[in-house]
């Protein structure tokens, strides 16, 4: 039994290999107090750890109410975010905790199948998982059937609809889901999909209860978080912290740069915050004041000597290469944005035009943020970074001459409406259309 407000909870490791089933059961011996795991899950207020932070019990309840003959639990350990290492570290420390949680979830919704998804690039993680599943099946043949699946490790493959599409149809492509929350399906069966860290937390809640879970973290954001710290650190690390720990303390523990220029929170689809906000605490309620969120628990540290535009260029170029090429704005827009950022970075004479184009595209994307194109999440807010002169001077520190002519010009509203042909042609087409259709 782990004492209530003590860390570590999830990465509880004494050896340099993952815990075996016997060791796991010794380390996490249950006191047998929990009777109704679903009620405990609701009382715990656990929020998904995959990035969106959706309350897990609401998802479970939605799936529980589905009247379907077959139900599946899918554990998402794909970890497509290049800055994130938490799921791999968790599985390298204790795969049985993740499987415990998956079995608890399966019992709550009445599922008979569990699929654990690990990207096929992570061969060590696959080994650990295979071994753990084998150990469980040797112990007992009862309980839900656990399978290991290894989809290709692309960025979009870890998105939930893409993952379910892969399990259903062997295609790693995200689907169009206009109405949320919507229930994902494999064939006729419904799917409960949760991140590996969320599953591990469910496993702990099913053992020790909500009271124990809430003894760490803040009332609005209970529990502990796995944080991957990368960027200006001596070693990229994964740490387990209580939600609500000040970011400064996390950076100190990771031996990172204590006076950073900026921090990228939540990964490549996350938010930049200024290095001045380093004293904020690391939980969703506090980070909301700067429009950021914990996301998948990633802190990327940009040092004072680093270049913000350079980092954004790397991210956008990488995203452009990872696009699923399904939606136009992502397939064409991202490479063009990356090219423009490249111009800006090189400080060429076209940089002014490039920045103006970027600003126009960012305002267009702002209007599109609600569309489900994965890669476009919060792009506009990322370019919010470039909007004021002082910020720009700070970012484009190495090319101050750029700032004077690089500021965006306000656009003529008429020009905006008639981007595509003049008004006269539009009327003409409409008149034709009416006679054609009616």
């Amino acid at each position, binding site marked *: 039994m782990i004492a209530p407000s003590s860390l570590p909870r999830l990465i509880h490791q004494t050896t340099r290999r993952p815990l075996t089933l016997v060791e796991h059961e010794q380390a996490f011996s249950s006191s047998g107090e929990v009777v109704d795991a679903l009620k405990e899950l609701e009382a715990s207020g656990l929020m998904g750890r995959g990035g969106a932070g959706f309350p897990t019990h609401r998802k479970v309840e939605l799936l529980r109410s589905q009247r379907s003959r077959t139900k599946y639990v899918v554990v998402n350990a794909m970890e497509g975010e290049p800055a994130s290492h938490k799921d791999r570290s968790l599985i390298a420390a204790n795969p049985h905790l993740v499987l415990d949680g998956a079995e608890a979830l399966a019992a709550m919704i009445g599922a008979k199948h569990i699929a654990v998804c690990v990207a096929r690039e992570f061969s060590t993680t696959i080994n650990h998982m295979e071994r753990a599943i084998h150990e469980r099946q040797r112990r007992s043949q009862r309980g839900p059937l656990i399978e290991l699946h290894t989809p290709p490790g692309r960025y979009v493959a870890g998105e939930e609809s893409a993952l379910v599409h892969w399990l259903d149809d062997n295609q790693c492509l995200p689907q169009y889901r206009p109405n949320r929350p919507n229930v994902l399906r494999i064939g006729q069966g419904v799917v409960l999909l949760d991140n590996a860290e969320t599953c591990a937390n469910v496993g702990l809640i099913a053992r020790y209860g909500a009271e124990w879970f809430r003894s760490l973290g803040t009332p609005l954001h209970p529990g502990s978080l796995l944080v991957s710290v990368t960027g200006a650190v001596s070693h990229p690390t994964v740490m387990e912290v209580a939600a609500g720990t000040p970011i400064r303390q996390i950076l100190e523990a990771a031996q990172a740069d204590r006076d950073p220029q900026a921090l990228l929170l939540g990964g490549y689809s996350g938010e930049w915050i200024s290095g001045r906000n380093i004293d904020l605490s690391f939980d969703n309620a506090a980070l909301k004041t700067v429009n950021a969120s914990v996301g998948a628990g990633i802190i990327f540290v940009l040092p004072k000597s680093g270049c913000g535009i350079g980092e954004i260029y790397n991210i956008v170029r990488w995203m452009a290469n990872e696009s699923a090429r399904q*939606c*136009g704005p992502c397939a*064409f827009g991202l490479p063009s944005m990356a090219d423009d950022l490249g111009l800006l970075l090189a400080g060429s004479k076209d940089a002014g035009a490039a920045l103006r184009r970027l600003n126009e595209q960012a305002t267009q994307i702002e209007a*599109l943020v*609600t569309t489900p194109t994965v890669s476009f999440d919060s792009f506009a807010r990322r370019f919010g970074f470039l909007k004021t002169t002082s910020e720009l001077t700070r970012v484009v520190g190495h090319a101050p001459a750029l700032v004077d002519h690089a500021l965006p010009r306000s656009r003529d509203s008429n020009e905006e409406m008639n981007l*595509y042909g003049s008004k006269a042609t539009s009327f003409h087409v*409409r008149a034709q259309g009416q006679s054609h*259709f009616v």
Partner: protein
Amino acid sequence: MGVKRRPSTFVLKVNPILCDGFGHCAELAPELVNVDEWGYPIIRQEPTKINNAGAYESAKYAVRGCPRQALQIEKITDAQP
């Protein structure tokens, strides 16, 4: 309680996966749809009044005229008072 409420506003929605950027919607519903530089639609996000007959008619034309059938009209009913 058995009272059928009429929708008061609508939004035009595009399925970006089906859309291939033909640009017909921008021709048929210029008051609702803009196109970006590759011809993909940028649709007005805020709901339009349904009794704005011109806009609603052209939205219907856009839905019917889309070669990929990627558009749909989503009607929004006000919340119960």
